[in-house]
């Protein structure tokens, strides 16, 4: 009797292993497998790019197996991060002229491939806020376009704000008059529409304001959305059409 039960148990075990191996994994397996991958990844310090790259095939297998789960997205973002790191390394290495340019081009292609899947199947994930800094490494128009896509198509304000901020930062880095203008517009839009969205222990409004500097004469006033002392909602734009004296004050 006991032996029979054992045999049955073994059969069930074998069957289930077989099913898992054949079909896509279940979500529980994804969590465990990703944890294992991350454990292996954690042995390499950040600058050990080569070591981490040895894990790429395993991460790729993982994303294929669990595509559609949150874990696969985490893994896909890890792959994107590696491409971004490699791209930066290829550009700034002293040996960049020895095929570095070509390698950089290949990385860009790979980013396109990775981004295509993310945008197609994960556009609704709040995790895409992390993409802003990864894609921000690639400063060309085509790659910057991903940020625009996320701003338009992501339903999450955190994602939109992160991408807007990155676009502004990249524009500011370009140091032309036109781009500086564009950066200012983007930062003002951030302040107007996303000032309450948190970034670490601050907000995107504060970040953007710090980059923009204090308001200048001749510029449009930044919108203020707030409440009065008794909680009545009020906006600065309620006063459009009037000459306004804006008075920052305190009774101290």
């Amino acid at each position, binding site marked *: 009797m006991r032996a029979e039960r054992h045999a049955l148990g073994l059969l069930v075990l074998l069957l289930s292993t077989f099913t898992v191996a054949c079909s896509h994994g279940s979500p529980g397996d994804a969590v465990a497998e990703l944890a294992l991958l991350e454990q292996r990844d954690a042995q390499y310090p950040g600058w050990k790019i080569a070591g981490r790259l040895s894990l790429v095939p395993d991460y790729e297998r993982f994303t294929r197996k669990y595509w559609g789960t949150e874990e696969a997205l985490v893994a896909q973002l890890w792959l994107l991060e590696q491409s971004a790191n490699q791209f930066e390394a290829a550009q700034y290495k002293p040996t960049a002229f020895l095929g570095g340019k070509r390698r950089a081009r290949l990385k860009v292609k790979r980013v396109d491939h990775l981004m295509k899947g993310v945008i197609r199947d994960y556009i609704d994930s709040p995790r895409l806020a992390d993409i802003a800094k990864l894609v921000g490494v690639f400063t060309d128009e085509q790659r910057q376009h991903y940020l625009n896509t996320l701003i338009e198509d992501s339903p999450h304000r955190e994602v939109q704000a992160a991408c807007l901020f990155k676009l502004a930062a990249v524009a500011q880095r370009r140091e032309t008059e036109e781009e500086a203008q564009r950066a200012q517009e983007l930062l003002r839009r951030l302040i107007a529409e996303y000032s309450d969205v948190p970034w670490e222990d601050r907000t995107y409004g504060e970040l953007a304001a710090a980059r923009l500097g204090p308001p200048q004469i001749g510029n449009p006033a930044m919108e203020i959305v707030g409440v*009065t002392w008794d909680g009545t909602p009020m906006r600065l734009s309620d006063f459009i059409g009037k000459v*306004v*004296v804006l008075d920052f004050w305190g009774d101290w």
Partner: protein
Amino acid sequence: MYPHERSLVKQLEKEPFALVGINSDSSPEDLAKVIEKENITWPSFFDGGSTRGPIATMWGVYAWPTIYVLDHEGIIRYQDVRGEQLEQAVEQLLEELKGKSEEERGDNTIQPK
């Protein structure tokens, strides 16, 4: 500051003019008390109870009081004007606004050739 602001608001009662405060006192109750005591008739935003409130931060304000004068289109036109200068600035922008609306009325009456 308060008496001057009060008189400015009183004096321009009938004009398209508004004084809007952003208050950095520590609580809405404190603000309510000051408003009562100083007979403050104009509206003020409550800025979260500190000098590092969201509005002051966004506007990069590090000194109090800080004053901006905006025209009727919401463009910043003057900064940190006080006393008589403030009055002149407001007068100037009100003139400009009147000039504009007269001009618009003029435009509407252009005759066909």
